[in-house]
């Protein structure tokens, strides 16, 4: 894509904005539309756009597959881990009220949903990236005679 000057310049301008917007949707999800799932997709779209324009290897340098894969597992563990914390504190699984004593303002619910949504965001973003790596990096190793 070396000759597509406009594409490259626009991408360089857009990618940080997309990533920032992803983070906004992630952390503003409590107050407005959004949340972990949407944020994860937007964040991954930034990386994927970068990969489409500058090549798969460049994207893999920014987000190495090995780390992306570990983060994918980490997101699930973060979500489930919040549940384990509430269990350990003596309430039902994923009952966020126990996380903070201020029940009137539902602060515990707030903390809980923030952590859980972060887990969702991380896992969704990394799964999207891995799907992109998987399809884009696929070499057609199935020869005709193999069938």
């Amino acid at each position: 894509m070396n000759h597509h000057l406009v594409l490259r310049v626009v991408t360089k301008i857009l990618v940080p904005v997309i990533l920032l917007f992803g983070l906004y949707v992630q952390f503003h999800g409590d107050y407005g539309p959004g949340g972990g799932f949407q944020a994860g997709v937007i964040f991954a779209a930034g990386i994927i756009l970068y990969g489409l324009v500058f090549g798969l290897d460049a994207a893999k340098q920014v987000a190495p597959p090995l780390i992306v894969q570990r983060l994918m597992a980490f997101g699930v563990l973060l979500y489930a881990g919040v549940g384990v914390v509430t269990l350990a504190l003596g309430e039902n699984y994923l009952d966020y009220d126990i996380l903070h004593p201020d029940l009137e303002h539902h602060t515990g619910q707030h903390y809980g949903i923030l952590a859980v949504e972060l887990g969702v965001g991380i896992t969704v973003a990394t799964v999207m990236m891995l799907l992109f790596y998987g399809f884009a990096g696929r070499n057609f190793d199935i020869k005709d005679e193999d069938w």
Partner: protein
Amino acid sequence: MLDFVTEHLPALQVVVPLIAAPVILLYQKEAFAWGWALLTTWTTFALSGLLVHEVFSQEFISYDLGGWAPPLGIEYRVDAANALVIAIVAGIAALVTTYARKSIQAEVQGRNQPFFYVLLLLCVSGLIGVAITGDAFNLFVFLEISSLSTYTMVALGGRRDRRAYTAAIRYLITGTIGATFYVIGVGLLYMVTGTLNMADLAVSIAGMDNNTTVQAAFAFIVIGLGLKVAIFPLHLWLPNAYTYAPSVVTIFLAATSTKVAVYALMRFLFTVFGIRFDFELDSLAFLFLPLAIMGMFIPSIVAAFQVDVKRLLAYSSVAQIGYMLLGISLATSASLTATSIHLFNHALMKAALFMALGAVMLRLKSTIIDDLAGIGKTMPWTTAGFALGGLSLIGVPLTVGFVSKWLLIQASFASQQPWLAGLIVVSSLIAVVYVWRVVEVAYFSPVPEGRVRQEAPLSMLIPMWVLVAANIYFGIDTDITIRLASLAAEALLGGAP
């Protein structure tokens, strides 16, 4: 500690394998993956034992997830019916993981081996989730968790035979249609009632017999789950998926996944819709019963002509689903007891048979019937295990297969349909034909030249023989299983107030 575990048992039952699965991704070594999966599945099995114990002492356990009270919140509701299914899934998972290592090393590509254990744990979590939840939409979510991991596990067989990929895609498409139909049905029910909690749904739709939306929801849910169950004409995904998946995957799927789907179907038919629902009674009599009978015969006959023994057993599984469906279509307490016990018994026999085949695959690299010549001499323990499992499949007395069929025959007499008993006996005779074909080749064909005695490793023989022993033990001492199965039938029928 035990109090804590007992109090949060329903949540732990699902969460333990769910949390354990991504941990393997963090440290992808085959030995660690196997050991970790082994620890997890046996823990899950222990938890399911506690759950069964709890259900014997109280009618049902209800757990509010996240502290939100049902019907608004998601409720995990365990009675005898799902405790039985959870125990099947967890027990088979523990034995399969014990058995798996050598077979997976031989059949799955090296770097994919740790991933297999991730998928297995996810699948266990999903299947237990389907069984444990009392929320219709939550059931869909767990159904997808288990199905997606299943499709991938089937595709892992692609190293041995590339047809595994097409089998997996076909399963994916059919399975997704099934799940979509199910969720459409749940959506329609939600439209009418405004609730997703199963117990609450049962109360709300009582007396809505002539509501066409409820009837459409019934049709969508039954067909959707029917695809997952592999009811006779909807079974086309099953034979290829079972044949080309790695042996360990076939063992696990054959013993658990269709069982869980049968449970979900029964839960909807009898607890949510309830047999006072006229539309359902007609469907049971004029749709389920004929399909059950066709299912008992046609796949059995097809099985008798197969050359690949794995495929033969896959068709036999479809036929066995016919028996379960027969119990469902009679819709009495006795017939549901027979179906519930057959869920358990069929899991025992098919797991034992497929484990024997997995051992054959490890040593001979083939399950084509002609290649099995003389394995009675080269692999005596494996072949003996297969033969005993086969006897159980036929329904010979002193095995679990006999218990299932006996109860089913009693149920058909009790329902004033003695001709069904005759059909059950005749279809069992077809099972004699296909089991005999394998036994004949194994014991009475000469050993090919150059083949030496090469028994399967102990790590595979022990789980296999535990299951074979269970086939005989539960065929003689039927106290626990019949008690649990009849409690399950009562829970299914009497669950709706």
